């Protein structure tokens, strides 16, 4: 069996950045595997700008962002197998690759999971009624319009205010469709505030909060939807049903990390993030199996996914060199009051950690607190917290000396 030092699964922003970084820091035996013909993952269909503000200090479109990494990949002569899928992954860090060239089992000393995420579908949210044509997830519609040259519809209702849906509201409007409304069941948008402004307000598209679709009409093609207002408990308010005529319903109801392979290999998955449980070296419960990007937790920015890929490259290198000593003990990181999840999930206390977290609802003028029982380790004031925005707080190993537990919370 062929054995490689590092195999990276998935060539989106996370996998690409990880591969380039590994070469930069002197790891020469790297293989990057991608199931699509083109490298770059989801960003190939994200033709709008706003990428690279952190990593390249300019606002690039998705394809341009990818191009920057692909150029470096070529410069470093990195081994890439595209049009090749990892179809099975095993606990002993071997895997089966399958492509037009055939099938082969290879093994890696270190694996980086970078498979990205997929969209929640109508099934996942339990929408009642018939299934006529004209219902798409926002990401599929984005692909159809931006890659395959297929216009998905003329009169569109968007269910869910996730960023992909907001971006598509603007895209459809520019292409001449009428986006009638965006409906969100929560009392706040789940997309970034800037996207509410530049994708909805700019084009006069209304966003109705605490509202959802209850029924889809139409046999062959969508002919309209029924929507209702929701009360504070999220229950439909009787008598608030309204009907709107439309030929297309887009669903933008969330993204889930893509972890079929990880599960198969025995990687433990976190119930909230849907991604692997990792420690402060981004290693999963299997030694030498790392995770970065949307496969680990859904990022709101490709830049962060790339940065995570680079961070993991450093850890993978040290792992190969036998320098990532096992921690004496692992401390579970607790997501306290106001926090939906925190990453990494386990820390040794011996390493500086940049905790990444999301809050469970919007807050104004609060403190983010990191504490060990009653001892406050770190406290930072924040003006605005929004569930759509990933937050971070840095803690140095000195500050964690002697801790017995660790909790991140909003106060």
């Amino acid at each position, binding site marked *: 069996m062929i054995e490689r030092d590092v195999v990276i699964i998935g060539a989106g922003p996370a996998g690409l950045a990880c591969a380039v970084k590994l070469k930069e820091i002197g790891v020469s035996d790297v293989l990057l595997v991608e199931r699509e013909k083109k490298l770059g993952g989801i960003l190939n269909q994200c033709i*709008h700008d706003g990428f690279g503000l952190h990593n390249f200090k300019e606002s690039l479109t998705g394809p341009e962002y990818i*191009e920057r990494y692909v150029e470096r990949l070529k410069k470093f002569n990195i081994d890439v197998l595209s049009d090749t899928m990892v179809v099975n992954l095993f606990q002993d860090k071997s895997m089966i690759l399958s492509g037009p060239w055939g099938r082969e089992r290879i093994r890696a000393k270190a694996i980086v999971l970078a498979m990205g995420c997929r969209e929640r579908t109508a099934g996942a949210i339990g929408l009642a009624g018939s299934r006529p044509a004209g219902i798409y997830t926002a990401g599929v519609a984005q692909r159809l319009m931006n890659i395959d*040259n297929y216009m998905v519809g003329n009169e569109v209702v968007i269910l869910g205010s996730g960023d992909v849906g907001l971006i598509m509201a603007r895209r459809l409007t520019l292409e001449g469709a009428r986006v009638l409304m965006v409906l969100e069941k929560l009392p706040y948008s789940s997309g970034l505030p800037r996207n509410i402004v530049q994708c909805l307000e700019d084009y006069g598209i209304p966003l109705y909060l605490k509202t959802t679709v209850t029924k889809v009409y139409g046999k062959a093609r969508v002919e309209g939807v029924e929507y209702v207002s929701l009360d504070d408990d999220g229950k439909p308010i009787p008598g608030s049903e309204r009907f709107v005529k439309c030929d297309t319903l887009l669903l933008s109801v969330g993204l889930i990390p893509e972890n079929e392979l990880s599960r198969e290999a025995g990687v433990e998955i976190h119930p909230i993030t849907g991604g692997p449980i990792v420690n402060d070296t981004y290693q999963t419960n299997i030694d030498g199996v790392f995770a970065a990007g949307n496969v680990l937790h859904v990022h709101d920015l490709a830049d962060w996914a790339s940065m995570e890929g680079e961070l993991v490259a450093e850890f993978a290198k040290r792992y190969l060199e036998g320098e990532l000593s096992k921690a004496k003990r692992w401390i579970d990181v607790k997501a306290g009051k106001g926090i939906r999840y925190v990453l990494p999930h386990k820390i040794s206390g011996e390493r500086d950690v940049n905790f990444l977290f999301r809050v469970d609802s919007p807050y104004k003028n609060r403190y983010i607190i990191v504490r060990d029982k009653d001892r406050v380790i770190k406290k930072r004031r924040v003006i605005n917290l929004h569930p759509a925005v990933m937050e971070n707080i840095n803690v140095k190993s000195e500050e964690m000396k002697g801790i017995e537990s660790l909790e991140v919370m909003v106060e």
Partner: protein
Amino acid sequence: MTKEMICILCPNGCNLVVYFDEKNPDGFKVENALCPKGKEYAQSEILDPRRTIATSVRVEDGEIPLVSVKIDRPIPKNKIFDVMREIKKLKLKAPIRSGTILISKVAGTEANVIATKTVERVK
């Protein structure tokens, strides 16, 4: 006058509070901006709101049927649909190199339309 707005220049999306007086443009004050760009944004948003746009254009004989394009600088908001109409008139043949200027000074603005993706030719 006081106005609240969200700066859209970066994902921080700062909630700006803007104080201004139409008769005295120097008395422009912006609060809650995490960086100096917030003030520039607020000024432009009140005096001359601008946006960039991205779309795609049909390509003949390409490996994929569309090439993605963008404009290389912000245009006045009310020009967006004029610019879209001009872009839709383009007829392109592969190969197209990323970075190529496809229309210069589109629809009487200062902006150029440039390809953001390379599309190779297939026979």
